[in-house]
């Protein structure tokens, strides 16, 4: 009964989505406010019914209702409760339901926080999100119904894929989807602006917190995915340039570009066309990501058995959304205009270069990701594009970008002077280069040039972010505690995110240059040394988990005779899906990780063992966390709330709120 309620709720949600997508749009065009008024109740009702559907599926998982095909495929009576709940999005149908839930939740949020928007604009935004929702709900009901029944009811479920039974996977997909789907808000804002033919600084100010919030979720989602791969896959890697990883990274890159170009649109009224195009691209890439993951066209760690019919549907949906919005763009963008003039040396130019680099980087990744698909489709042979391609293309593009992190925020709007910038940044440059030289010298090792470049860039990003903050304090002409308190959160957010990039670069550099890996055969009692740490193997014993048996090894790690850690890696056999699973044991600290994974059992109690010493690897996740925190600070900046309360739509009201991102009076 409950699953039928769920399915019925989805059908009602689809009807409401139709209302939400069509009526307000027509109303805004014809000036009928009664039609436009449909938007809010329809969106809220849709959210309610999708929540009901999601609740029904969750309930079916909790009570082990194996008459539901999807539950049977992805659960088991021995599966612990928290994994039964996360199993709701462990498979195809459920993750689409999560997608729909997240979309309606964002729409609900828009209905809550957009009261101050002009009625027509608001109706259009909500309607566009309704149209996206129609596509998703139709897709689910037509090809991937999560509530499909199975007769006769099997007694036992086939269990969740063991790889997905991990804390990282409980939170990674919801975060990622919040980010992916959150880009639909920016998309809806852009389409609404194109339809209305009216785009100004106020539009940018409304969009910014939404884009930043979605970007924060996307950042955290990608970071969690990387962390999950690191400790779950047992290869010690954290990024593989896997097509599915790329699929999440491309919208992130374009989203990052969007955040920066929105800043220009808000402060200077420039880049309008470009900002709209970026908003369309960011969401299109999110949809493309969904298509790549869900259609099964890609060979990757995420590619589980899939149905081609679904791929064709998503491809059609993608074509309609991307094609339709680009057509609309081509037709209406000239009306929007680009606005605002600036000199070749200015903050606008710095941000423009930032945008170009990010978009070009996303394009090269897109090329590498889709190239094998094209060749295959044309019958030109099967190839795969490997990490060396991505590294060789991506890293050089990021070098000038990191340089701009130091320059951009200090450059004046409209016109900056190279001499002044060089003067302000001279010590930063000297310090960064000095650190870059010093680290490879003190820590002798291979790859010294790469290390020098990496450390220099990391130090440059970090120090210049602090110097930039100091410049704000200086300009305030107040005692520094009060000056610090007076700096808006947006600036703190930017500083924090840029610091995070510095931390991330240092982490990547040191991890890749100085990690030590060893694969060897170890018998009980054997000891080996790795990067100054002695690892002694004390054999394995049987342990039992809720739904698996495991052989658990014990490794005592010592350094110069002193105990450092006891590591217990496991080799698990899950009872239902009898495939073996490696569970690595990791001793993490701020400066290094020690990582042990069991391979296969060999003769006489010996095991194949993989050991890693990974310096600074935690910084790879600390950096993105700081970026996300920066995004949160920026999204919660007071001026968005202030303008939300004021009547919006006034063009010149930028002067009434702190325009402190402008370092000079030349700002507004």
């Amino acid at each position, binding site marked *: 009964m409950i699953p039928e309620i769920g399915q019925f709720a989805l059908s009602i949600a689809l009807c409401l989505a139709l209302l939400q997508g069509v009526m307000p749009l027509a109303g805004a065009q014809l000036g009928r406010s009664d039609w436009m008024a449909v938007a809010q109740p329809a969106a809220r009702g849709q959210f309610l019914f999708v929540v009901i559907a999601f609740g029904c599926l969750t309930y079916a998982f909790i009570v082990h209702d194996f008459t539901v095909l999807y539950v049977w495929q992805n659960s088991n009576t021995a599966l612990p409760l928290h994994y039964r709940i996360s199993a709701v999005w462990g498979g195809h149908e459920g993750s689409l339901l999560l997608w729909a839930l997240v979309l309606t939740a964002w729409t609900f949020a828009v209905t809550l926080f957009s009261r101050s928007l002009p009625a027509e604009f608001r109706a259009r935004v909500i309607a566009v999100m309704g149209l996206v929702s129609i596509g998703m709900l139709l897709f689910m009901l037509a090809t991937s119904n999560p509530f499909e029944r199975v007769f006769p009811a099997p007694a036992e479920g086939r269990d969740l894929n063991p790889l997905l039974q991990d804390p990282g996977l409980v939170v990674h997909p919801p975060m990622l989807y919040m980010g992916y789907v959150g880009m639909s808000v920016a998309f809806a804002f852009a389409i609404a602006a194109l339809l209305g033919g009216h785009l100004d600084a106020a539009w940018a100010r409304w969009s910014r917190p939404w884009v930043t919030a979605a970007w924060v979720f996307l950042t955290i989602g990608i970071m969690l995915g990387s962390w999950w791969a690191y400790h779950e896959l047992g290869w010690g890697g954290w990024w593989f340039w896997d097509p599915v990883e790329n699929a999440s990274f491309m919208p992130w890159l374009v989203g990052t570009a969007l955040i920066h170009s929105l800043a220009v649109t808000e402060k200077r009224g420039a880049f309008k066309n470009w900002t709209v195009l970026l908003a369309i691209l960011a969401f299109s890439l999110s949809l493309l990501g969904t298509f790549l993951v869900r259609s099964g066209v890609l060979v990757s760690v995420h590619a589980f058995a899939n149905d081609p019919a679904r791929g064709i549907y998503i491809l059609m949906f993608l074509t309609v959304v991307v094609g339709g919005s680009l057509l609309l763009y081509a037709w209406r963008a000239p009306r929007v205009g680009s606005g605002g003039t600036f000199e070749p040396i200015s903050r606008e130019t710095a941000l423009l*270069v930032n945008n*170009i680099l990010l978009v070009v980087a996303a394009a090269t990744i897109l090329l590498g990701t889709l190239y094998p698909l094209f060749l295959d489709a044309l019958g030109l042979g099967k190839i*795969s594009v490997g990490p060396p391609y991505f590294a060789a293309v991506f890293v050089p*593009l990021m070098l000038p970008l990191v340089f701009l992190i130091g320059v951009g925020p200090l450059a004046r709007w409209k016109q900056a002077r190279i001499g002044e910038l060089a003067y302000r940044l001279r010590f930063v440059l000297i310090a960064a280069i000095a650190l870059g030289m010093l680290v490879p010298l003190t820590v002798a090792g291979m790859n010294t040039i790469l290390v020098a470049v990496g450390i220099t860039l990391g130090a440059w990003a970090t120090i210049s972010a602090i110097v930039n903050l100091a410049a704000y304090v200086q300009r305030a002409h107040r005692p520094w505690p009060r000056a610090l308190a007076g700096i808006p959160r947006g600036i703190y957010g930017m500083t924090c995110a840029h610091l995070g990039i510095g931390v991330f670069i240092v982490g990547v550099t040191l991890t890749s240059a100085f990690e030590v890996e060893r694969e060897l055969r170890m018998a009980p009692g054997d000891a080996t040394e790795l990067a100054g740490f002695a690892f002694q193997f004390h054999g394995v014993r049987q342990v039992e988990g809720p739904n698996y048996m495991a052989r658990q090894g014990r490794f005592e790690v010592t350094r110069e005779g002193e105990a450092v850690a006891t590591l217990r890696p496991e080799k698990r056999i899950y009872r239902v899906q009898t495939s073996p699973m490696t569970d690595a044991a990791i001793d993490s600290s701020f400066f290094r990780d020690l990582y042990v994974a069991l391979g296969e059992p060999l003769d006489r109690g010996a095991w194949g063992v993989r050991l890693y010493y990974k310096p600074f690897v935690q910084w790879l996740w600390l950096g993105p966390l700081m970026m996300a925190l920066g995004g949160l600070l920026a999204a919660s900046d007071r001026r968005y709330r202030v303008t939300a309360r004021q009547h919006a739509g006034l063009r010149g009201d930028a002067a009434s709120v702190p325009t402190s991102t402008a370092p000079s009076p030349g700002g507004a």
Partner: protein
Amino acid sequence: MTPKRKRKLTLIVLLVLSVGTATALALYAFQQTGSLLYFYRPSQVYAGEAPQGRMFRIGGLVVDGSVKREADGLTVRFELTDNAATIPLVYTGLLPDLFREGQGIVAHGRLGEDGLFRAEEVLAKHDENYMPPEVTESLKAAGNKHPAYVPQGKP
């Protein structure tokens, strides 16, 4: 020049520069070893279609009873088949969890003059019902109808 023209010029110069750089980078990157890996079936390798000494990927089923481990415990020899031809492989290192006899796998590496494929990486997928698409196709191309592969179905 008017400010508007100046800005347009800046934009065009930047675009040309960045697109040019990106193209150059991409062309350079495609030439790096391991950037582009072609895929061959065991019967193609057997027929001499695969290059010698260059990295490529090979995929097929691990032949039953062919897996032999050497004394160091880490070097493994096994054979890969598409049921039309069989190629011997050698790999040193830990094998993935789902590496088993009869299982479909994909390996990266180089073919030696002795006809032995030296694998640098062995991939098996993380789903027991999942067959890498290349392997499925290579089995089909070799004239098999889904051997050893039962698609997920209802009970």
